[in-house]
């Protein structure tokens, strides 16, 4: 599958995850979110950045349980809960946020 973002072709797999992570840029995240009817706010971005940093360090796209724990640890307890994260990413925080962040499908999510 190919997305066109700013006139540039971007290859994604059948579930919409980037095939080549190095292609990622903010416009791609915004285009993916817009296709889901979401405008990315500062609250969305800090989750995407955290995911990218986690992946960079550990080479793992975390599932929702691990993500929630990490958010609580690094961004504050008020944000480390599934209610908050599902409000930001209604289709599933790990699945949706990993996709926008250019990561592979999270480990242990089908």
């Amino acid at each position, binding site marked *: 599958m190919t997305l066109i973002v700013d006139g540039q072709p971007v290859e994604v797999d059948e579930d919409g995850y980037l095939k080549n992570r190095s292609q990622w840029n903010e416009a791609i995240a915004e285009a993916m979110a817009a296709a889901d009817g979401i405008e990315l706010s500062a609250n969305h971005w800090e989750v995407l950045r955290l995911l990218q940093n986690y992946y960079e*360090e*550990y*080479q*793992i796209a975390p599932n929702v*349980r*691990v993500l929630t724990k*990490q958010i609580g640890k690094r961004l504050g307890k008020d944000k480390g809960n599934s209610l908050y994260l599902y409000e930001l990413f209604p289709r599933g925080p790990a699945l949706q946020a990993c996709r926008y962040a250019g990561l592979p499908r999270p*480990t*242990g999510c089908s």
Partner: protein
Amino acid sequence: MPERRFLLSLSRAPYGHLDGQEGLDLALVLAAFGQNVTVALLDDGVYHLTRGQDSSALGLKPYTRQLPALGDFDIRELIVDRAALQARGLSASQLQAVTHEDDDFNEHDSLLLLEGAALAEKLATFDIHFGF
């Protein structure tokens, strides 16, 4: 039914094949689904734990960096064959730190260095053993 305890052992050095990556993937997936999982590094598998690996020239992702994240998946025990470390001239200072948090968020060392009979005895306590 009592909880089954899984052991995933890695016995080969990383990057030359897919075994290590597949073993760790399986460990993470089992843990993500709430299973009780322990990982063991045996024989050349202990090379997974050395720090500062750079796999970029191979075009492979440096998946051995996943080990310090085991605790995030509630994998709280990483068994390491101490005799295998010694036989390869590896010392503790060359190894990545692997820790986990208990239910009260206190951090603990996850490494369990064992050798010989004690290692064999420990490995025999698991219900299901996948060797990679």
